[in-house]
């Protein structure tokens, strides 16, 4: 089983804090994620969940403040922020024909955890099923060891066995590295399994969900 290096500072405390986030009709939204915390967000289609994640990942211009471990977004260069705050979109995108070209170290250690064969690095993208693509996209993102994960429906296309594997992998990653996870999901059973808090995004505002 793959072990990630432990974080030096093991204390609890805020990992990601967002204040007064506004973006294209979303907001104002306040949000706080502690170390090792997993929070789920759900809401009707078009409520702005993707917009929220894109704003937090600094892919869209937005208003408001976001702080990572107390350090504001502006203190990071764009690429550096996005390495630390990793966004996983619902549909993965690939820019080369070969799988291996997307993995700088061709790190194969995580492949078995998601039931992917090691030869997959040599395959062409066209050969992959949507489920394989989705699982590979997650491994690709984890290679950066982000301190915050923003997951936009990460298991939407997966069969139940794969869903379980992904959830297990993310749980291990979170506990070992102290990463905070913001997880967009529509599945109440999944939310109950993975999250310690559940927020609902409705009409551009974020509220605690009623159990």
């Amino acid at each position, binding site marked *: 089983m793959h072990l990630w290096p432990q974080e030096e500072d093991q204390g609890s405390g805020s990992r990601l804090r967002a204040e007064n986030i506004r973006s294209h009709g979303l907001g104002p939204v306040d949000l706080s994620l502690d170390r090792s915390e997993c929070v789920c967000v759900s809401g009707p289609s078009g409520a702005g969940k993707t917009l929220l994640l894109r704003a937090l990942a*600094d892919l*869209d*211009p937005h208003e408001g403040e976001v702080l990572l471990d107390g350090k504001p977004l502006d203190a990071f260069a764009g690429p550096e922020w996005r390495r630390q705050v990793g966004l996983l979109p619902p549909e993965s*995108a690939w820019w080369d024909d070969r799988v291996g070209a997307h993995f700088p170290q061709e790190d194969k250690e995580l492949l078995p955890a998601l039931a992917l064969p090691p030869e997959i690095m040599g395959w062409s993208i066209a050969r992959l099923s949507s489920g394989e693509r989705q699982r590979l996209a997650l491994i690709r993102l984890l290679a950066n060891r982000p301190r915050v994960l923003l997951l936009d429906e990460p298991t939407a296309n997966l069969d139940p066995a794969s869903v379980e594997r992904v959830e297990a992998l993310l749980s291990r990653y979170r506990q070992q590295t102290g990463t905070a996870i913001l997880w967009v999901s529509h599945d109440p059973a999944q939310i109950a399994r993975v999250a310690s808090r559940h927020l609902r995004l409705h009409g551009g505002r974020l509220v605690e969900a009623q159990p």
Partner: protein
Amino acid sequence: MLALAALSHALRLRLARRILVAAVRTTVQLLLIGLVLKVLFSHVHLGWVSLMALIMLAIAGREVMARQHRRFSGGWGYALGTFSMFLSSFAVTVLALTVIVGPEPWYRPQYAIPLLGMLLGNTMTSVALSLDRLTEGAWQQRTAIEARLTLGHDWSQAIAHVRRESVRTGVIPIINAMAAAGVVSLPGMMTGQILAGAPPMEAVRYQVLIMFLVSSGSGFGAVGAVWLGSRRLFDKRQRLRLDRLH
């Protein structure tokens, strides 16, 4: 031309009017240019030559913009194309005039204007093609570009694959033209010189020079335009800003 118009009428192509209008336009435009050049050549002055050069550049810039399906908004579309053409065409023209052809003075309009004209004409095509491919490519591949951004790639890495395709699109026509030169058709300048009585080997030497100048000028223009354009597609946080395109 009259015969062609009559044929069009007989075949009911409905092109007769357009043919005649085009013929009249060509004649009038070239007569006007001829007059302008006559005046310019008799008053050899850097100021007049520069003015003519800038007018040619401005018109070329407009042509480049007109050929783009998705343009940069707010005047950037015009500025990017014009600036890259200015840098590449003017630099190569001045180099050719001062070092290779060497007329007295170096800005002598008989040499400067035709040289610049040929350079601008071809650079215009390369720049237009590559910028069009860049903006279209950035739009079509926006999810892949943003995927690279989410993995911490900087703007240059994120758009690298689109940039490569765009420069190739601008440069390949020039390479094709060089390959066809002399074999498929006699290039225009050489034709002109031979018609004027120049010995063929002399004409060929000039033609080779021109083709190399035009190719390098167009190539540099395409590379410059794509680099500047791709930079413009990202903001200071290195986010992809397709809202900067119409």
